């Protein structure tokens, strides 16, 4: 098994005028080439931080991050990162947005444009190429952001709650699309999500993180029967129900909550909403 991503003893603390906040604590994680891993855990447990570390956007306070055996020291076009929202530039049309990676590398040209056009068509965006982001639906924009990320043909795809702002149906469609794309290209993927169903349906392994500071609580392997199927179909597998219930049980336990504890939530801060 080739290891594509490796986090060894990674800790990270954010330092600011108010002091230091430990976001990730002594994390060890290997992701094999072509593997699809999901990260789930309560808000503020360090999921985005882990993606940022993998992408080389921030340097770990301690430990090392490796990409295919080499230390990650900064952003690298081999890694594609899709942020929680689409962050398409509103002043560029979809095609120009998708081409930005080439523009930055200085390699925008007929070849790059042909590749982007092909991808846009593949993602059902051929007709929207000249339109501006605000003219598109949320689902189309997420797809455009995906095209932008995939256009430079990354080996690794990092996805930070890519579907959380979307409608149920669009969500199911995009899950299938991403899953297929990742499989077809043999891309290694790390998905952060709050939706346990999504995590279970899409990935080979689900990593459950403890409440902050981020430590791995458990890792759950997804049965082969579910892994073999598209996410939207996986949900109809007989094994899916039990898997999902096991996952939720683990989360509710790990977070000290569970039925009947509702009134105690006042002490639990949620940095997101």
């Amino acid at each position: 098994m080739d290891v594509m991503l490796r986090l060894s003893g990674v800790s990270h603390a954010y330092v600011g005028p108010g002091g230091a906040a430990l976001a990730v604590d002594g994390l060890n994680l290997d992701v094999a080439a072509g593997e699809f891993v999901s990260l789930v855990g309560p808000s503020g447990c360090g999921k985005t931080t882990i993606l940022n570390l993998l992408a080389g956007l921030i340097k770990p306070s301690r430990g090392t991050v490796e990409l295919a055996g080499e230390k990650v020291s900064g952003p690298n076009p081999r890694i594609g990162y899709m942020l929680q929202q689409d962050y398409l530039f509103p002043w560029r049309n979809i095609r120009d947005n998708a081409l930005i990676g080439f523009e930055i590398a200085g390699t925008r040209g007929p070849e790059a444009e042909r590749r982007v056009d092909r991808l846009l068509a593949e993602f059902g965006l051929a007709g929207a190429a000249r339109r501006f982001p605000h003219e598109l639906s949320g689902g189309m924009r997420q797809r455009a952001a995906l095209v932008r990320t995939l256009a430079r043909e990354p080996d690794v795809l990092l996805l930070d709650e890519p579907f959380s702002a979307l409608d149920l149906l669009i969500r199911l469609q995009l899950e299938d699309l991403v899953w297929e794309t990742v499989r077809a290209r043999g891309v290694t993927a790390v998905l952060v999500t709050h939706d346990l169903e999504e995590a279970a349906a899409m990935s080979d392994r689900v990593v459950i993180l403890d409440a902050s500071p981020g430590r791995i609580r458990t890792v759950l392997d997804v049965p082969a029967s579910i892994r073999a199927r598209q996410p939207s179909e996986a949900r109809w597998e007989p094994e899916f129900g039990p898997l999902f219930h096991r996952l939720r049980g683990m989360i509710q336990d790990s977070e000290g909550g569970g039925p009947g504890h509702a009134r105690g939530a006042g002490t639990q801060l949620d940095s997101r909403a």
Partner: protein
Amino acid sequence: MPEEREHSWIRELEHKYRSRAARITLLVRILQIALFAAFIILWETAVRSGWIDELLFSYPGKIARMLGELAASGSLLPHTMTTVAETTAGFVLGTLGGTALAALLWWFPVVSRVLDPYLVVLNSMPKVALGPIFIVGFGPGYLSIIMTAVSVTIIITTLTIYGRFREIDANYLKVVRLFGGTRGQVFRLAVLPGSLPTIVSTLKVNVGLSWVGVIVGEFLTAKSGLGYLIIYGFQVFNFTLVLSSLIVIGAVAAVMYGLVSLIEARLSPGYRDR
């Protein structure tokens, strides 16, 4: 059948909405004209019945005649063009200069912290009192006038645009960095275009400020221009001339403002609907 009934009431709604909107627009136009007419009539009456001094306030008829004469004699246009050219130069330079300065501050955060108190003090300097410095630096001529206008606009432009630069959602910068973009590319691809609406809307403010700056500049030193006409009008105690010039200024400034609004509306549509 239900489809058709449905369409008919929706059309009716649309029709009602449109005619209401048209009525309001008409009302607004009528009120605008009425306000203007009332002002003119009040002015004329006030002067004629001696409530206010004709010497100081002139009156609309006289001003119209003066404007007609000026236009006929062919001197109104050159004066206006001079001032418009100076104002345009001043506000383009002020906006570009302010943007460039803002870029500098964004690029070097330490510089921005160092310069902060200086900018504040410069901003509250009465530029009128700096007249002699402009004359020394740029000679008694167009350059001084344009620089006065620039001095009035540049600091506030810098502060506004720099503020906007810093407000750009960090995630847009992240997108560029993720593709290995340099700091220059981050600025060029994300920060600058993301601030374009703000830059254009400071243009709007700067149109007004540049007019003030140019008129003040023409008070310092000028051979022609509307500010020159004003100061000359004061000199020869011809307030009709002063007020006529002010009216031309108002009209031209409104036109320039309208042009900037047009530019704003022409911005890539993605900008507007955010």
